[in-house]
């Protein structure tokens, strides 16, 4: 009886599919949730999924450039989180609500 051998590697496309699954869940949260903070967190989830794709292709091409792009995505996400949360704070101060359905001044 031959010894039981486990494969020691994972196909690279599984990482891409995991990234796609996380991205789709982020889109679902963005569309479905009403709380503006949860919507914001769904955007962060989508950014994370894209970072995973960058790093997977970086592994495939044996280049560090993908890591640099993921790093810039992280930095921009940090800036976006600071400004976005300040906007949420201001909206809450003026309107006393966190529901995105009720913040519709730009709708006509």
């Amino acid at each position, binding site marked *: 009886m031959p010894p039981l051998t486990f494969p020691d*590697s994972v196909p690279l*496309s599984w*990482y891409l599919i995991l990234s796609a699954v996380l991205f*789709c869940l982020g889109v679902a949260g963005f569309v479905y949730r009403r709380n503006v903070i949860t919507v914001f967190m769904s955007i*962060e989830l989508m950014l994370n999924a894209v970072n995973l794709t960058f790093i997977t292709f*970086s592994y495939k091409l044996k280049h560090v450039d993908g890591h640099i792009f993921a790093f810039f995505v992280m930095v921009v996400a940090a*800036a976006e989180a600071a400004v976005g949360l300040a*906007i949420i704070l201001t909206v809450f101060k003026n309107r006393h609500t966190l529901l995105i359905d009720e913040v519709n001044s730009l709708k006509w």
Partner: protein
Amino acid sequence: MTPFFFFILAGFAVFCAISLVSQTHPIASALSLVGVMGALAVLYLQLGAEFLAAAQMIVYAGAIMVLFVFVIMLLNAGAEQEARRVSRLARFVGMFMMAALLGIISFTIQGQFPNMGSVTFGAWVGGTAQEVGMLLFTTYLLPFEITSILILIAIVGAIVLARREV
């Protein structure tokens, strides 16, 4: 051992992502997002991105999520009420569309990259802090400096927006 860890971490990440979308309380969603980020950090480590795994934990799970939790507690955000009437048909169509989007993406990935090779832990460790720093301060020096200006603008913008009298 790589597939074993991949399945554990991928399962944990997807579980936490579903929890993020389905929880009604923002704090529960935030903690689920921290779980996703932790699992992704270990997956980055598997792909040879040491520096980014550390940055993911420190910047994302550390700094950004603390900011989120801080704002949730500051605003005293409670559980979301199910006030909006969503029809059963719309819900069904939405789920179907999401599954279709996922299917199309997966199909494209499998079709475009049928034999892309595979990942073994430790086979390529290119993303050390030395390598990333070398590239960041030579080839990508200008974007890096522009990023610092972006951060400065974000700081000023956040302070102006969150002032008392707006």
